[in-house]
């Protein structure tokens, strides 16, 4: 089937107006041997049949609404208030595009302005853009922004080993043509002191994750002085739910705060679409990538919003732009704006504390099981590293096959010193019963 409105009479009339006999005549310019290839695609189906096929595929997945999920590592199962999805399905949000024409786009523009405001409040920063693709690409854009700030005079980037392994990979992919020196994570066991020791007058940026990939809260107090003493910039990759209760990176002197906005009202959806948030200090605003919404007035003095500082962007500055980003994650930023509005000041704190209490309850219960021990070098938020008596993959298989639980992330894949360590995440979605089931299962497996 298709969604075309043309009747035969329409087609005849319209073709005549174009002075063309048949539809295929529009393509006469195309070399004949390449015209109208026979495509080997499955025969078309009706909507009803397609939905049935997709239902079958979807149902063959095991997922977090049927299996308690203790897997995090950068994507988290959180409660999304029903109204978020209902608002996103408003056609006026969903089927508009980039608000180039402010007079007919005040809905998107004001929503983005509110999103920017709430991201600033959450991170303790002064300006935020209207989104990147995800946390990893936000992090890569932070690197590019820092390089631009130093106009090529500094080309060393320090990545904490406890920055998400995939984010570190994306930074390296993005910057492979830029001639950078990327250090800090050569030794996967390196700690904060080790990376501080690598700061020098060639360093453009140091990136740290908070809570880090192991769920821990690093001591950020002395960090800004160390970084700023050598004239470098500090970027913190933050979990936005954790910021519902924890001091924001802005208070620790961060110059850039980025992160994965998925926990803010966006389903896990097997990895996307997510939301990269990006906040910085006002003094760096002209180096910022992406769309920015600003407040102004119309010809009659009425308040309104527009895309601003567009000369940073690719459609104006082309090869001199701060980034190539065009389409961003507009609807996902809208989801986050609605989520943060409805949860609000008390609600986000409540989610954060629920996660904290449940994760600590789980850790305390598992810690006393023979063969298991929770890594407690630092305080943690809602995720913790657990030393296991055997290979994580085997434990996960048993957890799933015998108990229907989605287990944790195998840290040994990325950290040699954490072989047989599992990263467990506990959010407000886990009931006490789910956690008790996990504890019992771990106790029985070994």
């Amino acid at each position, binding site marked *: 089937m298709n969604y075309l409105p043309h009747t035969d009479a329409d087609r005849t009339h319209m073709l005549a107006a174009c002075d063309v006999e048949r539809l295929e005549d529009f393509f006469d310019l195309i070399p004949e041997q390449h015209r109208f290839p026979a495509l080997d695609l499955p025969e078309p189906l009706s909507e009803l049949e397609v939905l049935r096929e997709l239902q079958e595929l979807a149902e063959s997945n095991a997922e977090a609404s049927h299996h308690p999920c203790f897997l995090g590592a950068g994507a988290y199962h959180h409660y999304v208030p029903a109204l978020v999805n209902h608002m996103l399905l408003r056609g006026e949000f969903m089927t508009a595009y980039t608000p180039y024409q402010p007079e007919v786009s005040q809905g998107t523009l004001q929503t983005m302005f509110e999103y920017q405001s709430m991201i600033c409040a959450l991170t303790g920063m002064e300006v935020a853009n*209207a989104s990147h693709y995800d946390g990893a690409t936000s992090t890569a854009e932070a690197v590019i922004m820092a390089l631009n700030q130093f106009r090529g005079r500094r080309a060393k980037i320090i990545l904490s080993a406890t920055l998400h392994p995939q984010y570190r990979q994306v930074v*390296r992919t993005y910057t492979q043509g830029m001639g950078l020196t990327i250090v800090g994570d050569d030794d996967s066991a390196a700690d904060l002191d080790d990376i501080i020791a690598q700061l020098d007058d060639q360093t453009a940026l140091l990136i740290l994750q908070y809570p880090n990939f192991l769920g821990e809260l690093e001591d950020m107090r002395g960090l800004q002085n160390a970084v700023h003493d050598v004239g470098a910039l500090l970027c913190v990759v933050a979990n936005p739910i954790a910021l519902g209760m924890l*001091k924001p990176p802005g208070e620790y002197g961060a110059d850039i705060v980025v992160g994965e906005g998925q926990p803010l009202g966006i389903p896990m959806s097997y990895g996307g*679409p997510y939301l990269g948030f990006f906040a910085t200090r006002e003094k760096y605003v002209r180096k910022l990538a992406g769309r920015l919404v600003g407040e102004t007035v119309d010809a009659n003095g009425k308040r309104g919003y527009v895309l601003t500082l567009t000369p940073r962007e690719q459609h104006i500055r082309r090869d001199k732009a701060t980034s190539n980003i065009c389409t961003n994650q507009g609807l996902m930023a809208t989801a986050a704006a609605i989520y943060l509005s409805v949860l609000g000041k008390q609600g986000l704190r409540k989610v954060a504390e629920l996660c904290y209490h449940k994760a600590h309850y789980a850790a305390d219960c598992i810690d006393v099981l023979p063969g298991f021990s929770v890594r407690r070098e630092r305080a943690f938020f809602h995720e913790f590293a657990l030393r296991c008596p055997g290979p994580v993959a085997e434990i996960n298989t048993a957890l799933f096959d015998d108990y229907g639980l989605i287990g944790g992330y195998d840290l040994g894949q990325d950290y040699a010193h954490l072989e047989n360590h599992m990263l467990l995440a506990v959010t407000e979605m886990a009931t006490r019963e789910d956690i008790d089931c996990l504890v019992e299962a771990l106790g029985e497996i070994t």
Partner: protein
Amino acid sequence: MSALGSRLEPLVYDLSRPGRSGAPLPEPDVPHAELPSDLLREELGLPEITQLDAVRHFQRLSQLNHSIDTGFYPLGSCTMKYNPRINEDAARLPGFLHAHPLQEANTVQGSLALMYELQEWLKEIGGFAGVSLQPAAGAHGELTGILMMRAYHLARGDMARHKILIPDSAHGTNPASTTMSGLEVIELPSDGRGNVDVKALRAECGEDVVGLMITNPNTLGLFEEHIEEVVQLTRDCGGLIYGDGANMNALTGVIRPGDFGFDVMHYNLHKTFSTPHGGGGPGSGPVGVSERMADYLPSPIVAIIEEGDEKEPPLYGFAAPPKTIGRMKAFNGQFGVLVRAYAYIRIHGAAGLRANAEHAVLNANYLLSKVRAEYHLPFERACLHEFVVEGRWRGAPDVHALDVSKRLMDFGFHPPTNYFPLIVHEALMIEPTETESRETLDAFADALLQIAATARDNPEELRGAPHTTPVARMDEVRAARQLVLCCRPKFLSEPAQAPYT
């Protein structure tokens, strides 16, 4: 007349009252752990509103937007066609919606099978040997492709290549993606018929060329008349061909770019395969590649790990291409967008996709036939899925394309793309798409003709437009000079009450 009305909505912070909350959360069912008191924040500047406040606020905000769902949206180069609602239901099936991206492959075979099939279909549609679904948007696909082209030459020990040739009609993302890849942009002029100037191309082709980026049909909506020669010249000097697939809605089912020798092309799933644009995303920009580029695709791609048989389906999983440029994004691409594109392709089949392209081209040419007497067409040719005319008249020196655009809002239409491509004066780039009816196109043409008449008779009416939208023309200079990029909440004085301490 624009249907949007003139009421504005307060900022969400202005609706806030201390003590209100819309949070639908339970009390903890586990013992309270001691909070790390020295790490806690003192204040959190978020609004305090009820669910009803939130519903009304965002509903009212939505009503200040023009959208495909509420009216014609001929924004050139953006392919604003009907977004089938079935795709929304499909992407929200719980099995897709709540799967974690790092789950073991054997627990997410449904997601992986869908991704594998979509990869195969995109290979077939474009005539490519490999596809990666990882890129998040068109520009992200461009960066992916250019990095792959760079890596290809370097892996062959061909170290001197550093130039990317880009026509002057290209999207701004093309040169921007090139710079991000550490390469140099060489701009190629267009010839008198809107094609790449072959003479200029020949002069630039040499052993320092990484490749050529080309959009076909180009941003003028015109098919590159010398495409085979352009490809051959680039290849002869050892260069690769990058296709910007932004305009594939004109040619899906009509040609396969791979058949023309394109080495890499990104698709825009949100354009060609009609996933919603979301007020600026999410998009999705999978790249298709030729045989010689397949080893460089971003990692991972979806592969069959164990072949199936009559009884058992195959086992799908992730695989890393041998010379991969690396990972472009965390996790598994814009999966929810992929589900929508899958549904769209499945519903249409080969014949439906071709019919879409043919009717997109019919609609554009029909609209052009109705307005070309009054709007100057800089390149006198039949167009494909879109066309670019000039929004200026000799008899109306003070009227600009922007005035035409703003006045169209008063007729209830979204304006075309303005001032792009840069090679056309006062450009109005119009892409009607295939899902618009003859009646809509007639009404839009009538509005354009009426505006052309007004330009001569009463230019003031255009310069003051729009007259019926929620706000009048915005002071963009003030926005840039007196930067207000976030609101400072008025009620920040009170620290958030820790609910459980």
